[in-house]
């Protein structure tokens, strides 16, 4: 066999000759090869089917959690809406972006969708710090935006996120050094079972809460503002985590559905190929025997 790397000029010729020789010379070998490949595709199909079933059963629970948490988060944000809170535009103040992904892959493009959203934002306004929940987005964003990352959490998304998770994360975020004008939580918004898009929830700083136009109607004491801020952050995080989790599960269901379908198609194709090749081998053996027999008869 010619070394292809060493003699690029001969590559075309070598490729043609090997292609011409291969089918007739290798029928016996490929029969076994095809069998092996069929077996491995069947195993993969089994795995993807099982994962799909697991994801389907998890999906209903995750969706229930999502609708509950969404209502919860929206109610909590109602305060800010009626107070007409807006982020304070301050000089030298950074924005904190919290990305809600999870630890597990095999669920289509939902993690890279979030990463792309962050990268696009980084192009227009590079002054923000990143807090990343989940391993997947961490590894993706550490390649491009490593300088912006201040915290990353792992262990997210094993099960339906609990409010305790959100509270612990909120506590860590509050402890971060440095003043942030606002906290923006990026998560996957669930539109329907097959589509979702990156969206943001805003959580405000104490200063912007105090400066909001209609805030005095709530009659909240000044000293309680930091509590409200922490609690609001935990509420929004919980909402984002639960909705992101539901998106991930439904995306995994779809991805596994497609994978099983593709595996099924491949199995059909290989089964036909396998049968044809076996038939060809039998025919050629018969031809050999018959020609051998007629030749010895003549003698």
């Amino acid at each position: 066999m010619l070394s292809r790397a060493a003699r690029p000029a001969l590559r075309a010729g070598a490729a043609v000759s090997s292609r011409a020789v291969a089918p007739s010379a290798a029928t016996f070998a490929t029969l076994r090869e095809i069998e092996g490949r069929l077996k491995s595709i069947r195993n993969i199909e089994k795995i993807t089917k099982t994962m799909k079933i697991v994801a389907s059963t998890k999906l209903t629970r995750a969706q229930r959690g999502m609708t509950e948490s969404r209502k919860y988060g929206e109610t909590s944000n109602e305060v800010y809406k009626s107070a007409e809170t807006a982020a304070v535009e301050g000089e030298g103040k950074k924005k904190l972006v919290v990305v809600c992904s999870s630890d597990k892959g095999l669920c289509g493009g939902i993690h890279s969708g979030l990463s792309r959203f962050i990268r696009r934002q980084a192009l227009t306004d590079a002054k923000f710090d990143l807090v990343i929940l989940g391993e997947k987005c961490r590894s993706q964003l550490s390649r491009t935006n490593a300088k912006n990352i201040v915290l990353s959490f792992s262990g997210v998304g094993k099960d339906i996120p609990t409010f305790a998770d959100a509270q612990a994360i909120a506590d860590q975020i509050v402890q971060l050094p440095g003043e942030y004008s606002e906290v923006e939580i990026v998560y996957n918004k669930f539109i329907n079972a097959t589509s979702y898009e990156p969206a943001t929830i805003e959580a405000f700083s104490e200063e912007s809460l105090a400066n909001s136009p209609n805030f005095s109607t709530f009659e909240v004491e000044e000293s309680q503002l930091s509590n409200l801020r922490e609690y609001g952050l935990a509420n929004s995080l919980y909402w984002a985590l639960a909705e992101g989790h539901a998106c991930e599960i439904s995306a995994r269901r779809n991805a596994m559905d497609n994978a099983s379908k593709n595996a099924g198609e491949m199995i059909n194709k290989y089964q036909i190929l396998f049968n044809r090749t076996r038939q060809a081998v039998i025919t050629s053996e018969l031809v050999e025997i018959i020609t051998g027999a007629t030749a010895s008869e003549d003698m």
Partner: protein
Amino acid sequence: MTAAWKAAGLTYNRYLAVAARVVRRSLKDDKRLAAERRGEMDLKFTKWTNGKQGEPQSVADANAAAYTERANASS
């Protein structure tokens, strides 16, 4: 006037978590098991400085350390 939990260095979220835990523990056994699963938290976090990843730590431990530190500072 600052509340007792604030003087003890807890954040509002921690205060809520402790209160929720007490309520969960006072439930009847069958309900309690389901409810306590909602209170579990097992996260790890990593601090980053200048694009470099630090050592992973448990969030629960780090939070507890922060509370005691603040309690000592305020008392």
